[in-house]
């Protein structure tokens, strides 16, 4: 969005105000009341539920301890973190070369840039459906591998496996990282690289000694963004996970299939806390980046 610089955005119409304007909270009131009712009240309700016993009254930490101590609960956490970490790693490995290529000018560049955004901006459910069809035992990929180039004797099983889920996560969530990495790359002053070239460094050397260190904050920020998306993923593992159920899917099934609301609530609180901490770290990185540039 284009905007002209304005001298002092806080000044109101007419005379300048120097005192704090408590009356302005009245303008924010409808939104605050709405969020209190539709968001914070349900959230607080969930937190309270998480400390309740399954049947009857009384507070307990059992919902937490049972989940965190059980092999099943730990397995769910491990699966969620593993899927998110792998998806992040693969996405970054895909995004860096893509961002490097997108710095050059070539035919069809704006098309590639649009494509880079699409998976993150359409309903994830639709993307997941298309991915399931493409990588099915009888889908195009297996048709190509088995019938066209004959590199595989049997169709590969990708759908409903963990590697398959990582592939699908990458397809849907890599744009978050790619955008951050691309904008980080574009903010690097080209004269720094030219200096490296002039001093006789090879392109590989220029990348590892000059570009990469400068890009590191963006790599971290992009990685955290992808991780957060993958960590919170719900609709994708819901339909592509089969028997593999990460945290978000477990919360949903615990609540709506098994109707164990307190247990589901405890899992939701754990998930929310982990994500909130990661967001704080991300904000810290972002503000650090702004301070240095």
């Amino acid at each position, binding site marked *: 969005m284009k*905007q002209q610089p304005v001298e002092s955005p806080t000044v109101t119409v007419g005379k300048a105000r120097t005192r704090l304007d408590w009356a302005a909270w009245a303008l924010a009131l409808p939104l605050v009341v709405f969020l209190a009712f539709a968001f914070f009240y349900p959230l607080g309700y969930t937190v309270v539920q998480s400390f309740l016993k399954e049947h009857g009254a009384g507070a307990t930490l059992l919902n937490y301890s049972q989940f965190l101590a059980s092999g099943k609960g730990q397995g769910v956490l491990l699966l969620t973190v593993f899927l998110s970490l792998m998806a992040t790693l693969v996405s970054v490995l895909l995004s860096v070369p893509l961002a490097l290529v997108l710095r050059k000018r070539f035919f069809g560049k704006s098309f590639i840039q649009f494509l880079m955004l699409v998976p993150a901006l*359409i309903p*994830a459910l639709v993307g997941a459906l298309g991915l399931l069809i493409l990588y099915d035992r009888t889908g195009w990929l297996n048709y190509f591998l088995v019938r066209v180039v004959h590199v595989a004797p049997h169709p590969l099983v990708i759908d409903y496996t963990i590697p398959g889920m990582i592939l699908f996560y990458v397809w849907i969530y890599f744009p978050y990282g790619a955008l951050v990495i691309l904008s980080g790359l574009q903010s690097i002053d080209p004269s720094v690289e030219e200096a490296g070239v002039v001093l006789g460094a090879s392109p590989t050397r220029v990348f590892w000694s000059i570009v990469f260190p400068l890009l590191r904050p963006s790599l971290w920020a992009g990685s955290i*963004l992808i991780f*957060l998306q993958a960590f919170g993923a719900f609709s994708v593992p819901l339909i592509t996970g089969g028997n593999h159920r990460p945290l978000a899917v477990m919360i949903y099934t615990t609540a709506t299939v098994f109707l164990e*609301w307190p247990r589901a609530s405890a899992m939701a609180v754990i998930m*929310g806390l982990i994500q909130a901490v990661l*967001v704080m770290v991300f904000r810290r990185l972002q503000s650090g980046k702004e301070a240095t540039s």
Partner: protein
Amino acid sequence: MTFGFRMRPWRRLLMIVSLALFVLFIILPFVMIFLQAFGADWFGMEPLPRAWTLKWFQWAGETVDIVKVLINTLIIGFLATVIALAVSIPAAWAIARRRLPLKGLLMGLILFPRMIPEITYALGVGRIFYFLNLTNTYLGVALAHVILAAPFAVLVLTSTFEGIDNRLLEAGTVFGCNTSQLFLRVILPLALPGIVAAALFSFLSSYNDFVLTLMLYGPDTVTLSVQTFLTFGDGYTSVASAISVILLIPALLFLAALLRMVKPENLLGGLKGA
């Protein structure tokens, strides 16, 4: 171009091949949905369906009343947009142009829903809205979608309002505008692009939402994304693909419109998660 040496031919070839693979990687899932939606008797291990058909769309019309589902989705999206704008415009104005005390606290409250995964609060929203008889109503589903739309609407509108030049407002006052005239004749035209972007975004986040809708829908408020899920879950992949096509086309059109107004970084930051 960062530095001025020409690429060697083999590097050029490598670049073209990897870009082509990337394009295929992104596009093919969409191609599959279209083939599945328009193909008759396509059981795979064949490159293309043997015949083309519209029967899956007809099925979608007959078995799940897709027109009703589409109307539900549009009504809910419209309601969510109107409510999101109604609560976000005054709040954004207060943040952008008044000396608001505890501004950081307010921003924290507004952006909080974006900091945690949707499923963590969708659970509670489903329960509370159920107690209040808001499940399976247009208003209930729309209100839940406002939780997604409002934070981003406030961000876009705040930066829009900050960009309005004080001198134009002063000029309006000098020429005798009262407050409402000032809003209608000076502020609204200046802020219109931002308001349109916020509206498009709000509609799109309602239109695309799945998690909150899943916790709140009932027979009268099934939306396109929930219907895609239900139909796929029933095992009708082709019908689910047909519904996805109906879902996808307006989503892509809206997206293209929105991308002309908002920088993609901001869009992703707003659309999901942190």
